[in-house]
């Protein structure tokens, strides 16, 4: 491998980080290729790199290995991929109902591009000075890259392959279904079983004397964007809940997300109160919040965190919304967290893409980065979550969190605060539960925010809210490298399949829709795949210190752009420290040595036994186990 690793294999490296998560799905075979030894083959970040078959087989593969129920739609020869890093590459383009597959022609230099159609945000016919008779298309992708292709115009007037891609990439706009409904892979694990709400609440010791489980939303009648199972203060009857619901936007009443195992302080989420311009009040809502406060004997205060900037919260009053006045809610303190709305975030990501893709300008990197405000937003979200975690942990105070509708910024804040507070969510399965619970069942509108299979790329409802959350998690893993059971590759895989439409996990907008669509029956869960290949997603440095609360430093000094995600297409930036890799090698070495030592011991014992009883006292001291600390 090393030999062919030279100049020409950049291509396969270039594409491999996608393959790392996508292609590996196709075959559960393939061990790690030798090239992962190579620092810059991108495997350091994802040492788990799996490639289709043996990596050397790339050259022989004309077509992609198809997934179950994936079918070839069109194959076109003589297409040029205009790579921003390597120049022009001629090859064959294959389109299936799931992916776009491009392979270089020359046998001796493997280059493969393997893109799930789901990541394509829009397809544009590009103008510009091309050689005569050529047409070119730009595929703008959701995962921070653009792909540019060109091919000869067909003289017989046949439509371009990209017209086909346009149909296949946006099935929803063409009254078709995304590929997830067809994908038929069977995994040993069933990811749909990962989250069992009652088991999760039971883990937290719920219900208890202060909190009861209500079935009022059994048929999504109270709130169609909430899950069936809700935890509410024990002394508030269902009748009152209905009245509270009328005072909360989209009927999203305050419900429990997390409870502190010792202090009983709780994290409660909801939507904004419908205060309106006239400062409407609701006795039921006031009573309800008082009940939340009373459920925690440790504190006589309640903190209400409004994720929005106060200006926006005030502006919402004119539309019937608003925020809790401290006059109406006694003992409650309202704090604004200044996190901006989905439109600001979308714009920020757009700017970020401009700065990082395809090439990074040689000078002014830092001020260019700053001008995108991306990290500033990350800082504000983390700062908000930190304040929440601090109030719950150190202040032993219950908190209520909302933004406008309580499904974007609120989900970010509750899930991040819970990640800081509860070590369970820092495990692979715990994190899956966290996403299922705080994001999926509580109605983060994935379909609208991502726009799966929808050609309407300029939809104002699209926004990288979930990406921001994963970015924040990555920042936490950077600051606490031993606190998370999963690795960076796990996070990247989640983001890749957020767009790929291979799994059903991130489809639809709410639990109700998912049930209606029968997603659990018709599609495969992302967690099925991940939990069946767990080895690849584990952080070798993980130390389980579950009772340890993480307080990240939310200063720009410690926040970093996630190069491994946002700039991963740029081959120059593949230089991450291979610490995890080194660590794994050391682990192997230790195992090997341990074995050798044991062998020697046995040998010694047998030898000393045979050569009379000289000194049976060679008590080879057992090896000290790894010091766990913190």
């Amino acid at each position, binding site marked *: 491998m090393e030999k062919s*690793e030279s100049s*020409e*294999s950049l291509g396969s490296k270039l594409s491999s980080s996608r393959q790392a998560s996508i292609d590996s799905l196709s075959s559960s075979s393939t061990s790690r290729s030798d090239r992962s030894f*190579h620092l*810059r083959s991108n495997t350091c970040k994802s040492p788990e790199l799996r490639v289709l078959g043996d990596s050397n087989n790339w050259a022989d593969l004309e077509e992609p290995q198809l997934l179950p129920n994936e079918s070839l739609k069109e194959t076109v020869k003589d297409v040029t991929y*205009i790579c921003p890093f390597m*120049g022009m590459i001629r090859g064959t383009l294959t389109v299936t109902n799931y992916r776009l597959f491009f392979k270089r022609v020359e046998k001796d230099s493997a280059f493969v591009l393997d893109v799930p159609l789901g990541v394509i945000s829009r397809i544009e016919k590009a103008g510009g*000075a*091309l050689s005569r008779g050529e047409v070119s298309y730009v595929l703008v992708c959701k995962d921070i890259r653009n792909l540019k292709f060109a091919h000869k115009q067909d003289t017989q007037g046949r439509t371009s392959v990209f017209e086909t891609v346009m149909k296949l990439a946006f099935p929803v706009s063409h009254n078709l279904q995304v590929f997830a409904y067809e994908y038929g892979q069977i995994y040993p694990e069933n990811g749909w079983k990962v989250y069992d709400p009652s088991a999760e609440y039971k883990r937290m010791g719920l219900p208890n004397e202060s909190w009861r489980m209500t079935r009022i939303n059994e048929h999504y009648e109270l709130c169609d964007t909430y899950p069936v199972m809700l935890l509410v203060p024990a002394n508030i009857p269902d009748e009152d809940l209905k009245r509270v619901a009328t005072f909360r936007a989209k009927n999203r009443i305050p419900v429990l997300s997390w409870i502190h195992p010792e202090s009983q302080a709780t994290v409660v989420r909801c939507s904004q109160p419908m205060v309106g311009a006239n400062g409407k009040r609701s006795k039921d809502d006031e009573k309800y919040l008082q009940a939340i406060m009373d459920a925690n004997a440790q504190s006589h205060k309640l903190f209400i965190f409004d994720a929005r900037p106060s200006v926006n919260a005030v502006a919402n009053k004119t539309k019937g919304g608003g925020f809790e006045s401290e006059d109406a809610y006694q003992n409650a303190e309202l704090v604004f967290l200044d996190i*901006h*709305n989905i*439109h600001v975030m979308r714009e920020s990501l757009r700017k970020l893409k401009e700065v990082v893709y395809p*090439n*990074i300008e040689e*000078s002014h*990197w830092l001020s*260019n*980065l700053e001008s995108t*405000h991306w990290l*500033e937003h990350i*800082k504000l979200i983390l*700062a908000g979550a*930190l304040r929440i*975690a601090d109030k719950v942990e150190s202040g032993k105070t219950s908190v209520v969190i909302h933004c*406008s509708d309580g499904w974007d910024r609120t989900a970010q804040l509750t899930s991040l605060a819970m990640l800081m507070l509860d070590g369970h969510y820092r495990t692979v399965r715990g994190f899956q539960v966290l996403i299922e619970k705080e994001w999926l069942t509580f109605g983060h509108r994935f*379909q609208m925010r991502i726009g799966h299979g*929808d050609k309407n790329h300029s939809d104002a*409802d699209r926004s990288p809210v979930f990406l921001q959350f994963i970015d924040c998690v990555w920042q936490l893993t950077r*600051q*606490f*490298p031993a606190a998370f059971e999963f690795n960076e590759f796990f996070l990247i895989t989640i983001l890749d399949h957020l767009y790929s439409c291979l799994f059903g996990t991130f489809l639809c*907008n709410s639990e109700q829709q998912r049930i209606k669509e029968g997603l659990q029956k018709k599609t495969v869960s992302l967690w099925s795949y991940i939990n069946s290949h767990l080895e690849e997603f584990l952080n070798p440095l993980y130390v389980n210190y579950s009772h340890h609360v*993480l*307080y*990240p*430093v939310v*200063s*720009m*000094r*410690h926040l970093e752009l996630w190069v491994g995600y946002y700039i991963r297409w740029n081959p*120059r*930036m593949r*230089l991450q*420290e291979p*610490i995890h890799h*080194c*660590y794994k090698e*050391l*682990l192997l*070495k230790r195992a090997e040595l*341990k074995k050798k*030592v044991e062998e*020697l011991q046995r040998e*010694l014992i047998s030898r000393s036994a045979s050569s009379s009883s000289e000194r049976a006292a060679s008590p*080879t*001291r057992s*090896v*000290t186990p*790894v010091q766990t600390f*913190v």
Partner: protein
Amino acid sequence: MLSLGSGGGKAAKPSFISYVTPEEIKIKDGEISRKQKQPDLQPGEVIFCSAYPVLKCEGPQRGVYGTLCCTNFKISFISEESLSEETAPPLSNKLLGENDIALSCVDQIYGVRDEKKKLIIGGQVKNKYPPKLLIYCKDFRVFQFCLSYAKEEEAKKIFQGIVHHSLEPKSLKCAFAFSYCEEVLSPEVSKKIPATVMFESKDNWKLELNRTRSSCKVAHVNENYVVSERLPQYFAVPFAVSDEDIRKFKGQGVPLWCWSHSNGSALFKMSALPNVQDDGTSQVYQMFVDRMTNAVCQNQMYPVKTQDFSSGFLPLADLQQSYNKFKQFFLIDNTAEFWLSDVKWFSSIENTGWLEKIQECLNKATEIVLSLEEENSCVLMIEEDCSDLCCLFSSLVQVMLDPYYRTTPGFQSLIQKEWVVGGHSFLDRCNHLYQKEKESQSPLFLLFLECVWQLLQQHAPAFQFSETYLTVVSDSVHIPLFSTFLFNSQHQRDTATKLEYPDSQRHSLMIPSVWDWSLQFDWKVQALFTNPLYVEKPKQDKALRKPYRPKHQRQFSLPNSSSKPSPRKSFFKEETDNLKKMLSGMRIGKWINATEMQLSATRQFYESWQRKPLDYHGLILPCLDGPAIKIWLQRYLRWIPEAQIFGGGSVLTMKKVSDLAAEIEDLKNEMEKMAHNMHAGNTKKLFFSSFHAPTRLSSSFPFASLRTWSTRPVIPTSIVQSLGSVSNLAEKEDEDTEGVEVF
């Protein structure tokens, strides 16, 4: 620990004391002398003045009383409370405690009166003294001392003493090393460190020439500095350079050998001959330089490229200015300031230009490596005195090319060879004597360490030493006890240490070298200098350096030596331009935006290197793209409480890896023991896993102790938003479309 309850609003004294009431100081006059503690003194150290009680403030709500004194070595605060061993920082220094500041480590002093900070300038101190003193150190510690409880006379004296001894010019003989060495008779100190090659003897140079298989020779014409005071006594030159040539212009214009590549190319440096108006002289000079360059050519059988640093590349004053701006962002004495500077953090850092300077340096070094490695040509660096940028680039290039210089002894030998013996003017550049004319001050050596740090963070397994080691080296520059960083030249050192009346045993003072780390740190502490990620060279490979392996050059062929018409006249700039033109024609199609693809030669070099299999015992190159250049957080943030990640930070990873490495080492020993059926020696290698941290680790490990810092989270204050430009979006509603569901 005195915890000074919040508020404490009783008739507070002006300025600082808003939270301390006089009643809280429970000291009766009689007790003062009893409670006053003495600092630990080094041999030859004398106390100039002291004051008691002085309050050292630790954060807004805490403080500790003690004695503040000033000696000929340091400013020292002796706390009334006895510090338990457990809370001392892991990296405890034997010479300087955590409340000691070496006099030459003082960067700036501020007087604080009525909440106003005023910079104190040496020589302008009058009878008045400020109630509160703020001392910024060159190693980024910040101390706050409140003088208002001490007797007026004492407070005045200590203030004037500190200012006088740390902010006013002094003579070289006042450097503490001299008083110390008069007391300590240990002529063997420098011999304790055999692994580091000092390059003070002929043999050292010979061995180095052999090691690199160089055909240069050692010149000893400058023994006893008879030819030049700037040159060391021994150095290496091309074979064809005669002693006469060296004498001719006192060593100027002579190519001095730095390092030889296994492919036959080599790196040289040269002091430029002065620019003269007189045509005749100028011609003589030119002819001489031509002949000398030819000598290099003949010696190496390769063409020579010239790198001329005398023409304003990276001006030293700019470096100083840029670093001055940069460091200010890390000398922070209160939380408000911390969060305020967080707002425009990235652009503020960029505006200092310091990271850009690092980038420029690494780029230039890569350029030189490119010539040596790929183009098979020699590089001759020319600079006025060849002791500033020449030192920087020569050593940087060697770190990148030669794995030996990435081991700890190798790195120390390199600093000896290129910086210490190479004649870098540490005394002037670091301004140890606090000379008023600061033009000669410039953080060149620090810049070198910064560049090495960048390489280390990009290619950790290639280095035997850790980030902590580099930080400690950078701190040691400001301890005026070591000969290494104290002098402008070897000649100056030898003259200054000569004893006027030599006693029977000694002819000169033996000032210790910094490489004798046991003077500063216990051997256990020194374990922190080892990089657990270091990939050791496989043992069977006996050759010191890898034989040259031909490089794969299929993608594009780089100009090779034979195509160069006139090697002597070929200047580097033109070369790169040609190369650039050539390269840009190769792969870049007409469809690609031309400006996007204007890759420099070094970029191309990096990319082609990147495609080859990585060998940690071969060449390493830095990635120079913006996101790859980082701030040396350990050095700059270690003392700032707000920036500490408790239970986190990269140190945790290191700790885990160290644990494992130590375990493996244990197993190996075990095996050895069993194999020989006897008790083998102890572990030779030591990793910092031997520190069973009593408290939780933090990202400040191993520097600051956590004792005084609260482990509560730091909630940002004053998050000033700079998001004005997006206000039209910000005002928009999140959910302005009710959303027709798609499914």
